[in-house]
């Protein structure tokens, strides 16, 4: 049934063997998950290294060459630590919370396309699931992810955790609006919620037709970026885990693998946000030089090159994340709320209206 549906959506396939479809899909899921989790681990290392350099020190450099095995050592440490279960916690929810956080962070990668629509045995090789409403799926999964943080704070039975999760919930609800409104301009320009369509609109003239430049969505890009920083609880919006006020915020009571799950969820969300920003505003896997670059190498090189562009763009976002963390101080809580509701939201609405007016008269 799944295969049939897939065939009908893609429209150009005649016959897909269901066994091959299932096996290849499983393979895709495994490969993407492994790469994604490795990327999460190395994003942590990237952050520690870069923040180290920003603060004029070396960062981790002892485990392996240039500290490259540090994520392995960290993972082993977290895995082997004793898993403490505080007495006064609400047990089922306490265990459920990190699972919700991590699984929501991992699900969204399933709808993200990494490269051109290249089919092998009728299966799209660079995307796990090509949905007509891919963008909405990402927004929906992100909005469910709030429960991980909200429930962890509540079930911990600890005032710092509760404050942290209350802050986080309020912050995520507030910035979700601006985030949702900022992508409407892009959707208006594309006329589709399918992520592949959104990218295909942007790859005609290289960098010039990216939404951020050619689509005149620079303001939307800024709003998306700011709201995404807030959604992922990163500096300068990391009030949910402000060390100086709340010890560690919502994950104060967590230890060992449960803490690691929150930690991984945060970094996985960073990567997902980077991927979505790349797809929506920076032309996804399309080359910045458009067709100026001659097609070199064989078909395999030509298939993998877009993936490299995509990864490069996402890497720039991760770099930006760390750079911002090393540069900006934390907002005060009222500043955070005021910025979200009184500045970002009106600007996002104005951007939607301006974009739709321009498209109505010139589109």
């Amino acid at each position: 049934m799944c295969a049939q549906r897939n065939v009908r959506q893609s429209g150009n396939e005649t016959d897909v063997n269901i066994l091959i479809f299932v096996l290849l899909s499983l393979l895709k899921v495994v490969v993407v998950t492994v790469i994604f989790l490795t990327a999460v681990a190395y994003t942590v290392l990237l952050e520690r290294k870069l923040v180290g350099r920003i603060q004029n020190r070396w960062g981790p450099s002892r485990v392996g060459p240039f500290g490259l095995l540090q994520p392995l050592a960290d993972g082993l440490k977290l895995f082997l630590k004793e898993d403490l279960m505080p007495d006064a916690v609400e047990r089922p929810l306490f265990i459920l919370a990190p699972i919700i956080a991590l699984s929501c962070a991992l699900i969204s990668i399933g709808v993200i396309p990494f490269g051109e629509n290249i089919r092998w045995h009728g299966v799209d090789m660079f995307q796990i699931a090509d949905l007509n409403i891919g963008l909405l799926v990402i927004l929906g999964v992100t909005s469910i992810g709030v429960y991980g943080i909200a429930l962890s704070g509540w079930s911990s039975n600890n005032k710092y955790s509760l404050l942290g999760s209350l802050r986080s919930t309020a912050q995520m609800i507030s910035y979700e609006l601006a985030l949702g409104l900022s992508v409407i301009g892009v959707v208006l320009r594309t006329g589709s919620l399918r992520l592949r369509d959104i990218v295909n609109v942007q790859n005609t003239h290289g960098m010039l037709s990216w939404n951020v430049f050619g689509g005149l969505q620079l303001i939307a890009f800024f709003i998306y970026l700011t709201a995404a920083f807030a959604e992922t609880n990163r500096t300068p919006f990391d009030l949910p885990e402000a060390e100086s006020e709340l010890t560690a915020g919502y994950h104060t009571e967590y230890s060992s693998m449960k803490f690691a799950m929150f930690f991984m969820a945060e970094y996985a969300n960073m990567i997902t946000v980077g991927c979505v920003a790349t797809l929506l505003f920076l032309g996804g896997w399309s080359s910045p030089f458009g067709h100026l670059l001659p097609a070199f190498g064989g078909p395999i090189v030509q298939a993998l090159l877009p993936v490299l562009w995509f990864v490069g763009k996402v890497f720039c976002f991760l770099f930006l994340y760390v750079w911002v963390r090393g540069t900006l101080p934390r907002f005060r809580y009222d500043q955070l709320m005021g910025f979200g509701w009184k500045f970002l939201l009106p600007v996002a609405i104005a951007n939607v209206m301006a974009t739709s007016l321009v498209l109505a008269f010139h589109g």
Partner: protein
Amino acid sequence: MHLALFLIFGLLCIGGALNLLLQRHPINSALSLIVVMSSLSVLYLLLGAEFLALAQIIVYSGAIMVLFVFVIMLLNAGEEQRTHGSRAAYLAGIPGVLALFAVLASTFFTLRTNLGSARLGSFLVSTGDLSRVLFRNLLLPFEVTSVLILVAILGAVVLAGKEQ
């Protein structure tokens, strides 16, 4: 395949709804309601209404229920106490629900030819089709509903402003 998914999520939906009523702690009830909302969205998806399914998740599970949970956490509401009123609600409620269910089921059954039906997973309504219906044929009801919601928001702001 579709029937199996329908059965799983339909049962999950009913189970969540029952759990919502039986749980004594408001947070557990709120979480059961989230399960109900999310499994409803899967049922929408099975009927081919993609946009509606995701709107259900984003709006109900993601925004409204987060506010519910937020308020319960903020008020630190404890377990509810059973009173005589709640026993009365049991006695009157269960037959009432059964009667309502019977009426609805018989109505749908008798009118099933007029209502039209949808086969599980047999059609896909694109977001474009949905918005054409919403913004052309049903424009007036749509706008009136948004004005209604705006009035509700203004009312909430006025009520909150009076406190100070």
